[in-house]
């Protein structure tokens, strides 16, 4: 059973916008005494946004791991799990294999995707200078990050369910390319 790509990417975008706005604006009018509860600090807002999106992805990633590994034989080594992540899992979720994988053979992997699906349609307003230059400034990178927390969670959840407990971080400086860093908690 497959899902329309448009629906998936539109839903994901709205989900991110929803979480961001729910964190920065209170849903109910707060009383005067309760004002301290309202999260005002942008740093905290960012952390909570990241946590909410990442955790949602984590839950789903765990369940997807079961679903997508059902009909295959069991993984022999960690390498097999990573290969599954970069080929089968990536293709099922993002429509293609990863473009580059680097490892230090001690529990750290760097995964690069030159055309990451959630970022394909993302574009900032033209600043009037160079039409061909798509580099991002600091502010823009922060905004793009929001759309990458959920995929991070997906990867973290899938790896966790398959037996690799890892931290997953992501960085993007030129859409739609981005780089995921997976660091196994067992490594030094």
């Amino acid at each position, binding site marked *: 059973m497959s899902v329309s790509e448009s629906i998936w990417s539109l839903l994901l975008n709205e989900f991110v916008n929803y979480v961001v706005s729910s964190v920065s604006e209170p849903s109910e009018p707060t009383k005067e005494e309760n004002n301290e509860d309202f999260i005002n600090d942008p740093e905290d807002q960012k952390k909570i946004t990241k946590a909410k999106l990442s955790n949602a992805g984590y839950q789903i990633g765990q369940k997807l791991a079961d679903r997508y590994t059902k009909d295959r034989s*069991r*993984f022999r*080594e960690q390498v097999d799990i990573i290969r599954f992540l970069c080929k089968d899992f990536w293709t099922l979720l993002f429509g293609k294999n990863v473009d580059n994988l680097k490892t230090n053979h001690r529990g750290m992997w760097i995964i690069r995707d030159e055309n990451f699906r959630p970022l394909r349609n993302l574009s900032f307003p033209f600043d009037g200078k160079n039409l061909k230059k798509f580099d991002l400034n600091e502010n823009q990178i922060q905004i793009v990050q929001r759309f990458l927390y959920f995929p991070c969670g997906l990867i973290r959840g899938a790896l966790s369910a398959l037996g690799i407990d890892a931290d997953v971080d992501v960085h993007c400086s030129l859409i739609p390319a981005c780089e995921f860093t997976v660091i196994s908690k067992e490594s030094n």
Partner: protein
Amino acid sequence: MKIICVGIIGPQNNPLLIHTDFSGEERKNIEYIVYTALDFCEEKIPAMSGNKKSSLFESYLGLLFPTEDLRVYGYVTNTHHKYVLVLDDSDVKDVDTKKFFVQLHDIFIQAISNPFYNYGEKIESLNFISNLKSLISKS
């Protein structure tokens, strides 16, 4: 084949579901058998980057151990969930038990896809139990 008990154990060896028609003392005995089966599962599951024999990396673990009048079969998934099947018959083909496990895996995936199910918790979905019952009655 006559199915006495179906057990689903999570990655941390926590029981997610033990389904059997027995109760009381007999149920306790059967649960004990399921937990014993886990030890045999561990033996059969090679550690990561261990043996390279292809037969050891199938999900289906086969007959774990026979007791006087029961036969216990095992199956392990890629996500380290273990399924234990306790049977009464002595005349059962591997093909049938394997088929049962594969179908169990299917309905298990449906059960965990429930958005109200938190990964790692006990499975209490009535839908799953009824799917399991109909699977048992078909086998």
